């Protein structure tokens, strides 16, 4: 029986949201691209992928060349094709966007990446050994990008990862709806095939120590990401689930994840939206996000907010948790206080102040918090210069300690952190490290 014509079975709740483009869809969409010269989409992309070039190659059926074009600028093209906020980047800059529909750049990129990974094609061959050794700490997007770029140039790279799997947030922290775990893991495997040695389950600082690494390696690149979810500082907080762990469970063991019937998600960033989506898709009847400020200040991308509203998630603005209400040791409700906006705080956003006596009790049976991440854990142990708790790095990604470089979320003291920014950091840092080690530049 023709699978395509049979009545569609309900897809698994966390299956990748967007289906792959068929070859015809991809060719047709790529033919719409105007092929702008010096294109704004390429400028808007933090890794500056030559987008018209890879799209043209899709239209001519040169998918191998298309994949190479993408990967030359961005080794994690398969992840970025899925997780990039394209509305804010390439597609947002598309000249057809103003009055027409922008080109579906993300989905076309995924089409080219799926071609290469689907056929197990390795695009790059490492250069001859450069006689240098670099340790990379943290196998998230920045670390993978840096390690892969260095390996391409013939540098011997060992990649230390404290978790069991590489990929960082792409593996553990992005819901499968956006990026299935096997995509991130195939990128890790591709980086390994470039000659990068992955030492997983090894937390640098404990074993090995930075000092040990500095003895063995010519340079160290720190791409350790950020720390744990901060504390709210309210009574019985330990009954509140950690958002990143919630997402991780939905990827690693979705059948084991217990989802409440009436779930509250604290926070209004992209992770909060992902938590709310997971809860809703895995059966929660009611999901409410809480945010102490208003829609104007929320850090989630507008398209993500639109998405979660369509998922049937409610958002309660100007609301801040005060305490967890328990009954026989189980979450029964979350008491909150209503807020009002005041003068701008140090972040530049209006401060949120509680309105005395405005407490409300919101019934719920599960609470998840996704209120950002703490500053990188590693920083304090290294004695590197910091800025707002982030590692301080110069334009060459050099930290205050010679031979130690850093990039990715752990240096993102300003601006929004994103996967693609981390990939670009890794790429530029690799070039900088190579310049210093090999060219002594």
């Amino acid at each position, binding site marked *: 029986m023709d699978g395509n014509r049979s009545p569609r079975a309900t897809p698994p709740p966390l299956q990748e949201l967007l289906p792959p483009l068929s070859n015809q869809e991809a060719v047709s969409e790529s033919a719409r691209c105007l092929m*702008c*010269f*010096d294109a704004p989409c390429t*400028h808007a992309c933090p890794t500056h992928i030559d987008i018209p070039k890879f799209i043209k190659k899709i239209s001519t059926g040169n998918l191998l060349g298309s994949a190479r074009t993408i990967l030359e600028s961005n080794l994690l093209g398969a992840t970025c094709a899925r997780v990039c906020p394209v509305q804010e980047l390439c597609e*947002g800059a598309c*000249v057809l966007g103003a009055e027409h529909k922008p080109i579906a750049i993300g989905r076309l990129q995924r089409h080219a990446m799926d071609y290469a990974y689907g056929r197990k094609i390795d695009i790059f061959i490492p250069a001859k050994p450069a006689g240098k050794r670099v340790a990379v700490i943290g196998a998230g997007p920045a670390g993978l990008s840096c390690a892969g770029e260095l390996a391409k140039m013939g540098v011997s790279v060992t990649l230390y990862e404290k978790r069991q799997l590489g990929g960082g947030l792409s593996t553990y922290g992005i819901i499968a709806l956006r990026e299935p775990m096997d995509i991130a893991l195939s990128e890790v495997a591709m980086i390994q095939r470039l000659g990068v040695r992955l030492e997983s389950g090894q937390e640098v600082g404990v074993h090995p120590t930075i000092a040990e690494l500095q003895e063995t390696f010519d340079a160290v690149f720190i791409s350790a990401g950020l720390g744990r979810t901060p504390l709210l500082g309210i009574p019985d907080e330990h009954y509140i689930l950690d958002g990143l762990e919630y997402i991780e469970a939905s990827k690693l063991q979705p059948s084991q994840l217990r989802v409440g019937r009436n779930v509250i998600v604290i926070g209004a960033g992209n992770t909060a939206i992902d938590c709310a989506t997971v809860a809703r898709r895995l059966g929660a009847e009611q999901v409410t996000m809480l945010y102490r400020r208003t829609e104007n200040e929320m850090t989630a991308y507008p398209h993500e907010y639109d998405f979660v509203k369509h998922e049937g998630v409610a958002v309660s603005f100007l609301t801040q948790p005060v305490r967890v209400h328990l009954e026989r040791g189980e979450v029964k409700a979350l008491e909150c206080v209503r807020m009002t906006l005041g003068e701008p705080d140090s972040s530049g956003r209006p401060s949120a102040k509680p309105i005395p006596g405005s407490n409300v009790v919101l019934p719920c049976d599960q609470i998840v918090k996704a209120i950002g991440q703490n500053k990188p854990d590693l920083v304090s142990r290294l004695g590197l210069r910091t800025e707002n708790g982030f590692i301080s790095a110069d334009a060459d990604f050099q930290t205050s300690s010679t031979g130690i470089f850093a990039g990715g979320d752990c240096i993102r003291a300003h601006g929004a952190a994103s996967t693609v920014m981390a990939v670009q950091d890794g790429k*530029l840092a690799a070039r900088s490290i190579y310049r210093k080690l090999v060219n002594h530049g």
Partner: protein
Amino acid sequence: MADLSINFAGIKSPNPFWLASAPPTNSGAQIHRAFEAGWGGAVWKTIGAPVLNVSNRYGAWRYGNEKMLAINNVELISDRPIEVNLREIAEVKRAWPDRAIIVSAMVESEASAWHDIIRRIQDTGADGIELNYGCPHGMSERGMGSAVGQVPEYCEQITRWVMEVAKIPVIVKLTPNIADIAMPARAAVAAGANAISLINTLNSIMGVDLNTLEISPNIAGRGGHGGYAGPAVKPIALNMLTALGRDSVVGPSRLPISGMGGICTWRDAAEFLLLGASSLQVCTAVMHYGFRIAEDLCDGLSNWMDEKGFATIADLVGRSLPRVCDFKDFDLSFKAIARIDQEKCIRCELCYVACNDAAHQCIDLIDQEGRVVLPAAYKERSNGKVTAISSRPTVVVREEDCVGCRLCFNVCPVENCIEMLEVTPDRPSITWEELAHKNPEVAADWEQMERYRQKMGICIH
């Protein structure tokens, strides 16, 4: 409302749109449905010599999202028994007395064969006959079709045989696979034909399958040239149409011309009429979309004629023809320059790269401070839509250097964004013909040319 009816060499039809002799006019049943859809006439698929067809007979040229920019075919003339065709022609004509039924014919080059087929066609009550001198494949290998059309003497001889017995109007259909289209047309005039039609299909090979290395379309491992038609051939057809209108013999003969070759829309149709066609034939667009396109062909043409104040088709036939001339008669003092409407410009920079790489390097990228910048002048660490859009340079024509070549205008994807602004000529009007007559040394010698340019203030950078 405009009157779309025509009288073409005595053949009347309620509108100028006829189905060309081709697969859509293969049978009475099809033509019934075509007339129901509003077609003014139909040229019955060529009847004549016995044939056998092959599979995979149509190829198409896909380009971008256009599925059938052109079609090619190795289909022969009608493969249905001639008696069946003749019976159905008579039935359709009886059922549709107000529509034009023209029967295309092609037989071996014998007077008796032509006399016979013409008489049999006339017995059906058809309104006219079209002589197929155009088919470029298969039939031509047997000495018919374009094998006749490519030799003016054969055209004339066969047309004379036909005219000996013809009692209804005879149209000679020409092949474009010839160096000078006027020559076979003159033969038709000389032989006393009543009208001409053009163009038949062009010789073509559609391509090679890059997986199998077979010719596409593949006919049992082989392939060959076929007749090429569709939107892609329209400019070729228009050129041949005007070549007849401007020919010193064919033009003054006032022989009506039925135009075809890539007509898909009423706009195409209007252009054919303006350049001298007085009936129109359509095939590929019907092969793509079916008979239903007749509605907009008529409706669109009628609305346009009303808007322009043309009451009848005759009012507009050939109206633009006098504007067609040779290069030597162009006014060399004419000057236009490109101007980009910055409000409409979407900053795709296609005009910039076209001008820079392929024309005269006279479009600049200008940054926010008004400085000329190179492409990709942004910093590697900058990104995001806001930065990318706000820092995008504007694209400005350096008007003093613009030669007005019009390449930018052609590549611009935005309607009315680039205007070819006509500027007051800075020197007196002169054509090459006049210049070469007045100053023959300028036309013959580069030094003299340089001197002439200096004198006239012509600066070519």
